[in-house]
């Protein structure tokens, strides 16, 4: 706590932080403030409209409009439904796969790791191209196959859209999280496992009562990131919307923002809505962090 050392730390901190914060201020904070400013205005025109437009101050009315718009609020319900399916399936799947890899019973572990991880390396746009193909009736061999088995599914209907969107996300992220969990499992101390084996615990019991609790922090963190990512859900439903517009153009809050900004040129509303999404994400991730901290304390 000597004063020269403290000064040195402060100076070095400034040196190390300034490149990041300089750019951060320019490409994140400035646009954020600008968006906040834009959210206070609305564009109006009059008569037939061919006389041009003017920007008028709207106060908080854009926020009120977003919040009172059923389409925007419903978007959050969609997200909730999506999370309810996606998070357990994806995290659970990743965990099971990681445990299988770690069970010592699997062959060709390197191959499986890579093959399961591969979708994560596929750019979103290309993943979109692929899944649109597999979801579109008349194109998809999967649908044809199911039909020959007497099952007819429409992956693109409103009712199935949540599953279809979740499936794309599972495809992209399950292998990724599996690698994280597997790596965490490999760090579990050997003594704990040996002890369990001496006790005669089976593989399943070892997995559930020893391994899973030990990598619990890794799982909690993965859940947190997944939740934050889900609130910003955009790409997957956009893919489904492009293939079939049945789900509507404002299905998730982020799609609502896009529609407001680019379909309707309503930048004020778009800015207000995206700030509301950011606020919601912040509150939720705070809650998740709190919850998982309390859970892991005992």
């Amino acid at each position, binding site marked *: 706590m000597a004063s020269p050392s403290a000064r040195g730390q402060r100076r070095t901190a400034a040196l190390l932080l300034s490149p990041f914060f300089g750019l951060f201020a320019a490409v994140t904070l400035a646009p954020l403030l600008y968006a906040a400013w834009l959210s206070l205005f609305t564009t109006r025109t009059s008569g037939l409209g061919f006389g041009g437009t003017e920007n008028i101050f709207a106060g908080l009315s854009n926020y009120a409009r977003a919040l009172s718009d059923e389409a925007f609020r419903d978007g959050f319900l969609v997200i909730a439904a999506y999370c309810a399916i996606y998070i357990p399936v994806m995290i659970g799947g990743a965990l099971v796969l990681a445990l299988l890899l770690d069970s010592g019973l699997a062959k060709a572990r390197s191959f499986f790791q890579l093959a399961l991880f591969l979708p994560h*390396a596929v750019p979103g746009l290309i993943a979109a191209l692929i899944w649109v193909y597999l979801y579109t009736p008349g194109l998809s061999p999967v649908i044809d196959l199911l039909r020959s088995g007497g099952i007819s599914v429409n992956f693109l209907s409103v009712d199935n859209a949540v599953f279809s969107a979740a499936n794309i996300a599972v495809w992209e992220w*399950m292998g990724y999280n599996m690698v994280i969990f597997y790596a965490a499992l490999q760090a579990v101390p050997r003594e704990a496992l040996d002890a369990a084996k001496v006790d005669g615990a089976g*593989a399943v019991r070892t997995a559930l009562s020893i391994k899973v609790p030990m990598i619990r922090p890794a799982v909690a963190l993965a859940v947190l990131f997944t939740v934050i990512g889900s609130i910003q859900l955009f790409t997957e439903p956009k893919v489904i919307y492009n293939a079939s517009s049945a789900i509507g153009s404002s299905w998730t809050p982020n799609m609502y923002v896009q529609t407001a900004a680019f379909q309707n040129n309503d930048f004020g509303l778009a800015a207000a809505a995206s700030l509301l999404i950011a606020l919601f994400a912040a509150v939720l991730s705070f809650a998740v962090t709190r919850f998982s901290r309390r859970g892991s304390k005992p």
Partner: protein
Amino acid sequence: MTTFSTLSPAASAPEATPVTSPAPRPRQQRRVAKPPSVLLSKAGVTALLALATLYTLLPLTWLLLSSTKSREDLFGTNGFALGEEIHLVDNLGHLFTADGGVYLRWVMNTVLYAGVGALLAAVFSVAAGYAFDKLAFPGKERLFSLVLLGVMVPGTAMAIPLYLLAAKAGLVNTFWGVFVPGLVFPFGVYLARVFSASYVPDEVLEAARMDGAGEFRAFCRVAFPMLAPGFVTIFLFQFTQIWNSFFLPLVMLSDQDLYPVNLGLYVWYSSALSQGHPEDYLLAVVGSLVAVAPLIAVFLMLQRFWKSGMTAGAVK
């Protein structure tokens, strides 16, 4: 905090792990204790993994097979079957010569945007994350919550205000308009702080300080090398993010020679069938396959690092 000690990069590097060796013996013990179910046999576990692999790889086979087809076969034959003729070489030839060889240019651009951009972003993130973890300075947590705010803000929604500001700075339709935003990665700062906490023991720093090394020197010579796996992880995170970014380049660029691959493929894809040049549709498919390849190569080359890096982030 006890788990950290077992988690030095070397200990968690793949394949050098204790999990494989004790496996055979306990299996015999268990057989005595309880008859294992079919699913838990070697074949069962492998079969389950193979099933999951089928799920991840099957969609990619469509891309692979489609890339080998002629235009007629693309629309006329089953997606999971080969076409009547193999056109892969022709298709690749078209891909690299179309529009005066612009595809190769897009690939080069992407390497610059994503490769160099992510490299710098990782450097800045690690520096900032380290400062947040190890150095004392006023207003630390308040600054850090600003970083977290940056993580929460939906990127797609910020593209427009960013664009309007870039226009005022004269950066629209320039290389910098896409490159500079890629240098900022708030989530990377968060990760780097976590990495720093788990990889860089305070004692090592204390020792360096005792030896009279300045703070900056301690970071460069001592801490930064220890953060290498974290650095690679952050690099790869941001690399995929920039590689995937679509909306920002779309609004920012109009000169085709500045496009990243993603946007170029989209231009081909979007106007192929609606504007009646179906040959571009096939180009988009083949171009996608070719674009995935280098990404996979990067992940393969760096897998040693990111696997251990990701664990560290997770154990915190």
